[in-house]
């Protein structure tokens, strides 16, 4: 049974809806800038969504005084766009599920709560901590969209949303659900900024994925969701199919990727096998490409191992959006679907010199009119959690 993509929605530093993103790519407009969301000592660039929580609430028709994490607000905005894009509002006779994901739940609000609480455990506004768990934002998205059916939340660090989309497709294929809204959301917060800072992998300048001089990643925030639908249901339009997917574990180190990119290789290979395709049928790879020396070397090695000397066009979009962590797989799945649908390739910003060991050169210009039938989208997370999705016309 085919799983169709019938709706898309995303928000990131380069746009608050799908169309904004296309414009930003075309104009090579990166979303990186200084941190404005919270006071911090960090001066590394980040990619913030250019909407305050108040504006987000207004857009969503929610009362301004409501205590809702930014993680949930971003998720609601993108999930609603996907929901409306697939014209699901009147659908009542089908089993609709919601599979969302994030890496740190409502941490942006926990950061309000905790400093007061640790001084005096009777203090700190309880509303600020009630959304700490990753499930909270999912429940809120479900309520906003009026969904009463199956919902769950995945949290596997930076591959979270990719795993959510993969589960969605599997539930449809097994006949358990007819329609799934799947993706992920994450808001920038002090916790993750300092966390990645402590790992010494934040680049002080805009990140340079796949470049020889790359020196780390930039964090971002956002949300991205797909509407997946069984081909047996009726739909207004369809972008493409989700033809393959696979998750594999690198089982090498808690944070570092193996030098041969074994987990990444297994994930990409697994997605191809699931789709019944050979490597030469891939027309574009939206790479994980964080800009850290380790990831890009490992991912390059995996790509080379799988594709040999016929490397398809590939690029990382993270110099535009920053690394949106738990949302990355959702946001980049939307980009992959758009690449396929419109025949476009995204530039990998800030690339000058290939990595010596692999010599791989990403796409550096925005290209249109490209014939694309199959796209791979990669997301790799802490704990060696590697997932690839394969979208096909």
């Amino acid at each position, binding site marked *: 049974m085919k799983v169709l993509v019938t709706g898309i929605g995303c928000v990131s530093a380069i746009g608050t809806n799908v169309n904004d993103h296309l414009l930003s790519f075309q104009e090579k407009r990166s979303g990186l800038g200084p941190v404005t969301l919270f006071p*911090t*000592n*960090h001066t590394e660039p980040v990619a913030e969504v250019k909407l305050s929580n108040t504006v987000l609430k207004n857009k969503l028709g929610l009362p301004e005084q409501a205590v809702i994490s930014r993680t949930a607000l971003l998720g609601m905005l993108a999930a609603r766009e996907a929901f409306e894009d697939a014209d699901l509002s009147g659908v009542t006779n089908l089993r609709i599920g919601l599979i969302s994901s994030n*890496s740190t*739940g409502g941490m942006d609000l*926990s*950061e309000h709560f*905790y*400093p007061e*609480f*640790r001084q005096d*455990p*009777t203090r700190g506004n*309880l509303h600020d*901590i*009630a959304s700490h*768990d*990753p*499930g909270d934002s*999912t*429940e809120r998205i*479900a309520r906003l969209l009026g969904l*009463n059916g*199956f*919902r*769950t*939340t*995945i*949290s*596997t*660090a930076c591959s979270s949303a990719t*795993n959510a989309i993969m*589960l969605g497709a*599997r*539930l449809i*294929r*097994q006949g*358990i659900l007819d329609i799934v809204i799947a993706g992920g959301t994450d808001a920038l917060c*002090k*916790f993750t900024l*300092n*966390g990645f*800072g*402590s*790992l010494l992998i934040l680049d002080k300048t805009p990140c340079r994925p796949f470049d020889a001089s790359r020196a780390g990643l930039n964090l971002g925030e956002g949300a991205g969701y797909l509407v997946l639908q069984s081909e047996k249901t009726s739909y207004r339009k369809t972008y493409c199919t989700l033809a393959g997917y696979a*998750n*594999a*574990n*690198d*089982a090498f*180190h*808690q*944070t570092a990727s193996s030098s041969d990119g*074994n*987990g990444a290789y297994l994930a990409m290979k697994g997605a191809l096998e699931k789709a019944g395709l050979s490597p030469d049928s891939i027309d574009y790879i939206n790479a994980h490409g964080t800009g850290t020396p380790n990831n890009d070397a490992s991912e390059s090695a995996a790509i080379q191992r799988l594709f040999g000397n016929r490397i398809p066009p590939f690029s990382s979009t993270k110099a535009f959006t920053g690394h949106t962590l738990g949302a990355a797989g959702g946001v980049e799945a939307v980009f992959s679907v758009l690449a396929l649908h419109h025949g476009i390739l995204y530039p990998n910003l800030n690339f000058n010199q290939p990595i010596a060991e692999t010599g791989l050169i990403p796409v550096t210009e925005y290209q249109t009119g490209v014939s694309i039938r199959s796209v791979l989208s990669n997301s790799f*997370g*802490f*704990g*060696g*959690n590697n997932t690839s999705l394969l979208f096909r016309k």
Partner: protein
Amino acid sequence: MSKQTIYINSIASTLPDTQDSPEFVPGKQVSIQEPDYKTLIPDATLRRRMSRIVRMGVATGMQCLNKFPNAPVDAILTATGYGCLGDTEKFMNTLLDNHEQMLTPTAFIQSTFNTIGAQIALLSKNHGYNNTYTHRAFSFESALLDAILLLREEEASNVLVGAIDEMTPTVYEILKRLGLWRNALAGEGANFAILSTTAIPESYAVLEGIELFNGTYSAAEIQERIHNYLVQKEEKNVTVLFPSDYKKICGEYPTAMAYAFNTCCKHLQSGEIKTPILVYNTFLGNHSFIFLKPV
């Protein structure tokens, strides 16, 4: 719902100190017996970094794997409602104390929700499918559902499924202020099981079905729902376990269902319970049934 029979072939749990029903004292913390960490996690490099919840989860997971004769498993699924909160808090404290400077990464790395599943993969050199669910009282249930899918898809023959939640002083205090301990015991635990498509002499039980639903229901409505579920399953003589039946022993925590699941498996294997068992769980508007049968 299952087209093929799914067997539970190994279980491991951190058991509460008291297995019979003690006097009910609201808000009392259930203490558990922690496994022998050094034997179960012999790699000192890995073990030394692990916080309590990570040790608890990894050791219980490894115990479950070690007891399983048909290892290795093809996939590792974990579930946690709260995640590694001790590490989260530790990193947050250093962040505040040091004003965002000179932070050590270990606590941050381990605060990630999938740490336990990842460490089990690392220790058992497992390159297979690895996923982590964290949706309140649906966390463990979602992992079970994923395991059922993997077995049905023939992507796996044996799947490790586990759930871990830890009661830290901070969680206790916050939930107390939220009123949770007015009529509940504070619980925690690590509970792992292996689901397989083939029976072995050690098989504990058969997983017959799982159902998840949402909303607010009266006790009568839940009774009716259970009745309808059993009618549909064509089962009459069934033991029904309500949350109060097992939470009076393991306490309240998002993945308490995993404790009930393992306990039922044990009783079905020993013959202590001879009928099929339906376990009901509910927490914050998430409801679930798990239906188990003797092998």
